């Protein structure tokens, strides 16, 4: 079995983390650039290769029609859900999309879970290069307020990326886990609020921390949020504001989806970040007519503009507190999570509301991934000193007569949670009972989220005689499972549930097959390539060293040894055993140790020549 990691699959950035076996501390894994943040941007090259992260960001400007960001906003949603997003985000939805959204990237179409799987695969590669080992299992975080379809889509993405998703963990809960390791917030019974404003989603969770003889329990009391509220919305407001100004000032109206708009957006995000540090920032934006749009922004101005976004977070906060039966001053700790909480206005607003200085010690970008790593470690090691009890964010309901909804599992129920419903027939010899499962707080089915529809098969019998028990179960990932039992025969029914929005098993099978076509080389293959590259550079260095006049000083036996090692390495490079290649690299390194010393001494002497001793 390979390694296990925790992954924060974010709207703006994604991260991968693990728990260091020596220190027991969670740590984020850096990518090739040295940064731990992988921008959640995907671009597809005309040759079909997939580019993820920072390199894809540049393509957002140069090849916007082949690139996509913020795909998390589309996860688990139907085409009709995202109409409002389309006005603000440059998503090109395939017009042929039915239940499942398909996004056009160049001449290909992809579902949101597929695009997310490219990001996950990139992070998997980061981790594998870091460990030098395969990574095959992960804990992935999701916004606490994600519904069943959004969770399932995330799980599907993991599967498509070649990861066994051991658990989906709610982002604010993960953050609490990460903080809990650093400094136990409050003693037993302490209540903690986690305010998590990310790039595209907002969550608020209220937890109770309980110390027991066996260890610490993190019990979520309530959660609320908005899966379409985040830093993106601030950027949209800024962008619309400046578009309008440029239109009035320079009579230039550019399409919100074009290259220019993307460049402006990037510049404005820079201004936004700067205004978290300083009180003024100046935008200088070159326009196509040769002019430069220059304007100074003050922090006050930005705050006035984004106040509506900040205010929108407060309604979920109040609801979560009401569900936990707490008053704002009844909390022992408040934790800020998500890059957007760097905004001074948000820090101030949260501090005023709770009348308490929030925790910001851990990097708000990394804290969720760190918590995911902690949970991954618990699941891997069976660590018995910590237990997480999370809740379902939305009530589960069944459609009844007249389009009303009967709630069977209330929101904020600890998961796993279940409910049994008894069904019978209304007419003689009725052979099927239609069941519609929904999620949400509204009273009418049409206002709730449709999760699934299915038909219970019933053997022909007089009306009212059949007794079918249906069990609805929300598992520890917040995902629904359904089973049915005929109480007269104790016979198990298999229920074919067609997801209302999402991929079915056949879709996933097909995509898994297709993903091989797109997948980067697997771990071993990449190791071979990396080892060969390294071997080549050491061979070049050796050849260069041997060509040096100083190499003549090398004793004949040593020279033979070096030559033999070179031959052995070249031989190993022909094969695909990366361990053997590495072994021969080490061999050659040892053989050339003396040679390197000789050259080094010469180099130092050369460098010293003509210099006085005092200068050394």
């Amino acid at each position, binding site marked *: 079995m390979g390694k296990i990691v925790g992954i924060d699959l974010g709207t703006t950035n994604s991260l991968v983390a693990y728990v260091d076996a020596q220190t027991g501390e969670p740590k984020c894994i850096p990518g090739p650039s040295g940064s731990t943040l992988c921008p959640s941007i995907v671009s597809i090259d005309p040759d079909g290769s997939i580019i993820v992260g920072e390199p894809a960001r540049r393509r957002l400007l140069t090849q916007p029609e082949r690139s996509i960001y913020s795909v998390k906003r589309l996860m688990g949603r139907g085409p009709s859900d995202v109409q409002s997003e389309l006005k603000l985000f440059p998503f090109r939805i395939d017009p042929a999309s039915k239940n499942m959204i398909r996004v056009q990237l160049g001449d290909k179409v992809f579902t949101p879970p597929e695009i997310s799987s490219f990001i996950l695969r990139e992070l998997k590669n980061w981790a594998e290069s870091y460990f030098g080992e395969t990574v095959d299992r992960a804990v992935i975080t999701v916004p606490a307020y994600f519904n069943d379809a959004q969770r399932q889509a995330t799980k599907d993405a993991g599967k498509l990326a070649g990861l066994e998703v051991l658990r989906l963990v709610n982002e604010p809960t993960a953050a609490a886990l990460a903080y809990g390791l650093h400094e136990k917030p409050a003693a037993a019974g302490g209540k903690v609020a986690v305010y998590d404003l990310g790039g595209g989603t907002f969550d608020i969770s209220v937890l109770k921390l309980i110390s027991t003889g066996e260890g610490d*329990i993190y019990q979520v009391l309530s959660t609320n949020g908005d899966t379409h509220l985040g830093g993106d919305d601030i950027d949209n407001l800024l962008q619309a504001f400046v578009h309008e100004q440029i239109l009035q000032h320079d009579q230039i109206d550019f399409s919100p989806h074009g290259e220019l708009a993307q460049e402006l957006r990037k510049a404005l995000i820079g201004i936004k970040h700067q205004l978290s540090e300083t009180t003024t920032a100046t935008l200088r934006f070159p326009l196509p007519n040769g002019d430069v749009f220059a304007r100074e922004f003050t922090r006050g101005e930005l705050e006035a503009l984004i106040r509506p976004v900040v205010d929108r977070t407060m309604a979920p906060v109040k609801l979560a507190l009401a569900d936990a039966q707490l008053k704002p001053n009844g909390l022992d700790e408040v934790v800020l999570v998500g890059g957007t909480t760097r905004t001074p206005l948000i820090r101030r607003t949260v501090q005023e509301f709770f009348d308490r200085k929030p925790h910001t010690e851990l990097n708000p970008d990394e804290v969720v991934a760190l918590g995911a790593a902690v949970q991954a470690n618990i699941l891997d090691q*069976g660590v018995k000193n910590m237990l997480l009890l999370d809740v379902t964010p939305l009530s589960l309901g069944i459609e009844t007569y007249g389009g009303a909804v009967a709630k069977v599992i209330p929101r904020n129920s600890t998961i796993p949670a*279940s409910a049994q419903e008894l069904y019978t027939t209304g007419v003689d010899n009725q052979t099927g009972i239609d069941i519609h499962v929904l999620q949400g707080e509204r009273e009418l089915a049409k206002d709730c989220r449709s999760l699934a529809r299915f038909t219970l098969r019933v053997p022909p019998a007089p009306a009212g005689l059949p007794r079918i028990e249906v*069990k609805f179960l929300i598992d520890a990932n917040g995902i629904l499972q359904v089973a049915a039992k005929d109480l007269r025969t104790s016979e198990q029914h298999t229920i074919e549930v067609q997801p209302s929005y999402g991929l079915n098993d056949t879709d996933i099978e097909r995509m898994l097959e297709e993903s091989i076509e797109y997948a980067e080389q697997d771990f071993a293959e990449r190791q071979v390539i990396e080892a060969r590259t390294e071997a080549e550079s050491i061979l070049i260095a050796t050849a260069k060293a041997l060509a040096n006049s100083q190499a003549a000083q090398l004793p004949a036996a040593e020279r033979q040894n070096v030559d033999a090692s070179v031959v052995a390495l070249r031989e190993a490079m022909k094969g695909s055993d990366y361990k053997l290649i590495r072994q021969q690299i080490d061999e050659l390194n040892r053989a050339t140790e003396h040679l390197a010393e000789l050259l080094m001494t010469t180099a130092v002497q050369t460098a010293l020549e003509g210099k006085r001793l005092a200068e050394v």
Partner: protein
Amino acid sequence: MATPLHITNPPLVCWNCHERTIGTHFCPGCGKLLQLPQGSDYFAMFELPRKLWIEMSALEQKFLQLSWKLHPDNFVGATEQERGISLQRSSELNDAYRTLRDPIARVEYLLAIEGTRKNGENKQQAPPELLEEVFELNESLDELREAKAEGSDTALLRHRLDEAEKNFEQKLSEVDGLLQSTAREWDAAIDASAEGAARKKIMAQLNDLLNRRSYIRNLVVNVQKELL
């Protein structure tokens, strides 16, 4: 999305080593997690008698203690069958805790397992002595809706509905008081091992109070919605 889940009949013996196992969470023979024995209920799960007064902190302690043992986190590396049992057992534990923690849900559940109340039963008939007041209330609600639609002044109507709401909330707390005293009667009857007829009478009273409570609560909620 939803995947089929297997419901199997709880065995009388351990599914793994076939040792007799009734009444325990883990098999005394092999230590494997067991399914809940048939005929078990939420009270039995917490080793409580079927009484309505429950000491909340003891209930919470027991819940946390069982969570440690039953939660799926403990079974990630186990066989598919064990994972399934853990999922079933921990969901039952959470369902039980959710139900017993809530005083109203607790009464509903007790009546359901004692066979007095159908699952989800909520009679929506107005209790006869409330008929007149309910009629007036509905009239005021209609007037308020009309006034809102016409955009005319609603201050007076709102005031009247405020008063009515207070009146019904008062009745709600009366019903809650009655529920509490009847619950005490039930507990006393259990302690005294009272006979079936006496128990049935108390249960009928409890059932009646629950229906009444649910009716009045709906009224209050409806008024609150209109007044928002």
